[in-house]
């Protein structure tokens, strides 16, 4: 047979609005806190403790675990991985620096390459700012509003009434 055995769609047609909700960036109202105390000053101790505990649990469960430090550092950057011990020996994980809290959003924040503050949402990673310097004590800096230009692609299409495909 020279035809596909099955053809299933997950995004198009009746299959799927399921996927549309994933792949979301953290909401703009999210704030970073490195400790419960820092958060409590803004949001109330009970909520902060709960958020911290949940974020930590999420991190411990979902953050990748590596057998070798080099594998971890390849993904998260040199110096950004911690050694952990388990019954079966040591393993390596990225470093949780705190958590990001928004109205309907809480996620652990960990160090990524280039001192970036990273959050995982919908299966992918987003940068939510920077850490100034190395290690656990580094201070968090929100993402800077660098001037972003747009519209640098697409001009040719708008000057012609035809499809860009062919």
């Amino acid at each position, binding site marked *: 047979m020279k*035809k596909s055995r099955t053809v299933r769609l997950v995004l198009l047609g009746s299959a799927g609005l399921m996927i549309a909700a994933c792949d979301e960036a953290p909401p703009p109202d999210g704030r970073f806190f490195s400790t419960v105390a820092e958060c409590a000053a803004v949001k109330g101790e009970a909520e902060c403790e709960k958020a911290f505990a949940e974020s930590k649990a999420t991190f411990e469960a979902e953050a990748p675990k590596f057998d070798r430090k080099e594998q971890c550092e390849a993904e998260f950057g040199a110096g950004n991985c911690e050694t952990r011990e388990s019954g079966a020996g040591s393993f390596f994980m990225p470093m949780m620096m705190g958590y990001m809290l928004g109205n309907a959003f809480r996620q652990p924040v960990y160090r990524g390459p280039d001192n970036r503050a990273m959050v995982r949402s919908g299966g*992918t990673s987003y940068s939510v700012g920077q850490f100034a310097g190395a290690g656990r004590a580094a201070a968090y800096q929100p993402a800077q509003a660098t001037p972003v*230009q747009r519209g640098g692609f697409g*001009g*040719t299409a708008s000057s012609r009434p035809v499809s*860009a*495909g*062919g």
Partner: protein
Amino acid sequence: MRRLATTPRPDWREHVERDLGFAFHTINDAPYWDETACYVFTAAQVDELEAATGELEQMALELVDRVVRSGDEAYERLRIPPSARGAVEHSWTAGEKNLYGRFDLRYDGLGPPKMLEYNADTPTALFEAAVVQWDWLEATFPGRDQFNSLHEKLIEAWKNFGLGRTRVYFSAVKDHAEDTGTVDYLRDTAIQAGLHTAVIAIDDIGWDGMRFLDLEDQPIEALFKLYPWEWLVFEEFGQYLLSGVAKVIEPAWKMVLSNKAALALLWEMAPGHPNLLAAALEPGVIEGTVVRKPIFGREGANLQVIEGGRVIAETGGDYGAEGFVYQAHAPLPAFDGNYPVIGSWVVASQPAGIGIREDSTAITRDTSRFLPHVFE
């Protein structure tokens, strides 16, 4: 090879819209997807199409290699601007993978398929070939075969790009139903391959001096674009794309193939090949009736059919500034007054199936109809 009248499925429009998300079955009130007829091939003819397609792809890849090794003189003939040549060379020597392409073939079942053109950068009519005609086959001729394993091959190809967790952005021109539909389908196959994906309109892509950014200012590290390289390189952000800061699909080396000057270079490389039509970059070189095509033309615009030095037919349009290729005229065969062109797909450089577009005139345009096929 024959054309067979068939009975359209009752309520097929509602079905394809609702169940397949196929929104552009009718364009400007004229039918595009057409199930009042289908083409029927023999197994031997499908084998012939498949073999010819595989061979054409291998020749195309050989051409890219030769052009990259020749350098400026070859790039000049292909109208690839100096600013893009480094990116073309780098993407080829680094082995950057390609996803797909579509050869347009003239074929009547009686002689070898002849390549009319190769859409190597931004081929469309993919969803129709991969999904809509498959769905039609299952309903209309269950148990019969079709030369179409596009869907499965696309999913498999995505897995081999080595993207890991890198999110691929799928980009097209806003508000063009056919283009956004094609890109949505490709995103669907990428998701099924386990990739992380997002969409962004081509003119929403941002640049902050270091990286491309989406509308939430997140970095775009991999971009699938349904937008021609030859337009991008001259746009404001084109230079940043050429710098390699993001992975692009199709890769930059496809520029060697995505213009019709390549037709002449292929003929020079393999003169007399049974699947090629004679082609040259100057007039008066090819004998007999010749079609003059703009090097960067689209959708049948600005064609001239020249016989004995006289223009005997032409189409209008705005293309031709970059020059023309002259190709031996191979009139399309007629089946019941309709002229089919076989769109033969490669996915990851392997033949993957065909889709057929036909017109009631001898030049295929964007208003041509797409017909399904079956083979026995």
